[in-house]
């Protein structure tokens, strides 16, 4: 800049050099500018990538499942718990996925019973009550919860939580504690909690996995409520809790609902954690500590044993389609709910 300050005197601020940098002046070649058109096309193509991706997923899974679609006994598939993929003498093959569906939905249900109140409560606390360091710490912890891989959650269920649950729920058959548990459908009559990996363990683990989803999305929804709402409520003499319950919850209702739905989506689609933590037993659970088996875990466990192209292989892809359809509808529905809110707020 020194040279500039030196030559300042001879520059007349009002002297405009018309040919200096007008649009007609010469243009030096710039490589990055020259690739503008191809880059834009490439960017456009990448913009489409998610559509291509989702279409490809559906297409390829459908392609593998297709030959089996007309041949599958759909009634059995949805109403029978008999899942016998490898026929044996006296034991004909049967693809009844009822128990698998039951496993998926019961674990998800238990996960949601735990995760929704905990998640919403934590989100409200973080967004409305926590301040400074506490808030930051909690956010980091939630993030870490989200970062822990599903296989590690499975490991935790198998090695840490499972033994704990087994200890708590096991009682001598006939003892009063055993009776209580049978009556409450906590444990089955014969064995108590026969093993640590069961419906409850899986549900708790799934709850821990969907909590971060629920918390972070609910927090977004709460943050989206304008501060003027809070101020108005507080000015009317509502205490913070009343503000939350009477003002924020109604205002953020759709966002909170969407958060819970996405949490549910995560629970339905989770694989490795439930593979390790639910006990992997193909039956419709009668008690909270019965081992179950989910659709995802079935695919993960059995795909390796199948022969390419045989009915078992194709039925696993059909299970994949069912999962894909369930989770996609959950996601699209929650997306519509959130977007609906945005539109309403704009108008």
């Amino acid at each position: 800049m020194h040279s500039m300050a030196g030559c300042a005197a001879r520059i007349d601020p009002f002297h405009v050099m018309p040919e200096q940098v007008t649009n007609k002046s010469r243009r030096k070649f710039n490589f990055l500018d020259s690739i503008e058109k191809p880059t834009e096309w490439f960017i456009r193509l990448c913009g489409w990538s998610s559509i291509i991706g989702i279409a490809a997923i559906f297409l390829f899974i459908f392609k593998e499942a297709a030959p089996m679609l007309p041949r599958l006994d759909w009634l059995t598939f949805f109403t029978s718990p008999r899942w016998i993929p490898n026929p044996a003498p006296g034991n004909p093959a049967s693809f009844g996925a009822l128990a698998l569906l039951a496993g998926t939905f019961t674990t998800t249900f238990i996960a949601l019973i735990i995760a929704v109140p905990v998640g919403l409560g934590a989100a409200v606390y973080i967004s409305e009550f926590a301040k400074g360091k506490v808030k930051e710490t909690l956010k980091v912890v939630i993030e870490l919860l989200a970062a822990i891989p599903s296989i590690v959650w499975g490991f935790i269920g198998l090695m840490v939580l499972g033994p704990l649950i087994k200890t708590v729920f096991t009682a001598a058959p006939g003892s009063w504690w055993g009776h209580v548990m049978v009556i409450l459908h906590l444990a089955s009559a014969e064995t108590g909690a026969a093993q640590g990996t069961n419906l409850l363990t899986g549900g708790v683990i799934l709850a821990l996995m969907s909590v971060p989803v629920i918390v972070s999305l609910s927090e977004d929804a709460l943050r989206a409520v304008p501060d003027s709402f809070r101020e108005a409520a507080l000015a009317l003499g509502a205490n913070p809790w009343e503000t939350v319950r009477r003002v924020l919850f109604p205002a953020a209702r759709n966002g909170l609902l969407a958060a819970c739905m996405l949490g549910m989506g995560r629970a339905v689609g989770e694989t490795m954690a439930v593979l390790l933590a639910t006990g992997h037993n193909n039956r419709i659970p009668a008690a909270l500590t019965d081992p179950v088996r989910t659709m995802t875990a079935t695919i993960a466990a059995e795909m390796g044993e199948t022969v390419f192209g045989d009915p078992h292989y194709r039925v696993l892809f059909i299970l994949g389609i069912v999962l894909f359809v369930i989770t996609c509808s959950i996601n699209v529905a929650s997306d519509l709910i959130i977007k609906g809110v945005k539109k309403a707020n704009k108008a």
Partner: protein
Amino acid sequence: MIHGKPHIEFRDVCAFYGSKQVLRNVTFTVPRHSVIGVIGPANSGKTTMLKTINRTLDFIGGARFTGQVLIDGENVADFRDPNELRRRIGMVFPLPVGLPLTIYENVAYAPRRRGVTAKNELDEIVERCLRQSVLWDEVKDRLQMLGTRLSGGQQQRLTLARALSLSPEILCLDEFSIAIDPVTTMRIEDVLKELRKSMTIVLVTNLVQQARRLADNTLFLWRGEVIELSPTEIAFSDKPKDKRTYDYVNGIFG
């Protein structure tokens, strides 16, 4: 028209945001090297009018305009590369925007994009533009500071410097003095009087006296309609063409 072909010409321009019409059959001409003052209450389509000139209206979702805007007889809608057009037109909007670059790079931004790379050439442009926008004395020792760290008024002058960096033939100023103190405003107005020797200036302002001081012609825009376009002396006289102009200029209606 003393200068022959008008520099800017609006023919029946209507602009819409979605279904809302903001400009209604705006028609006027601006001779070369003159200053046109555009006055009018808020929300009367002044900014939209500027955005049709350099086609930045394209960037607003749902916005479109009909009719013709001619620059030197060329329809802006016919420019194959609207960026060519934008380089010929300097634009200053009311909100000061310092780009997150150094002050030097802020001013050198547009010339660099035009392929000017020589250091001395850029130095000259930067100094000329900063002097023209009356910012040079304040920042000449800290040209490497971030432009976003300047005060609002300084950033506004930086925006003006940037707009001048391509030596545009048309300079559009949209309430440029909003964040600038009166003394500096007067100095910039002096500069504008000099600049009109080399460019046509469209001065949108809500300070009617500013239009009176600078403009050759004054256009009164109200609810998207041109109410009056006459030489400034007439527009600010006791008997403008339209009674409403008198009322507005004298603060009787708003």
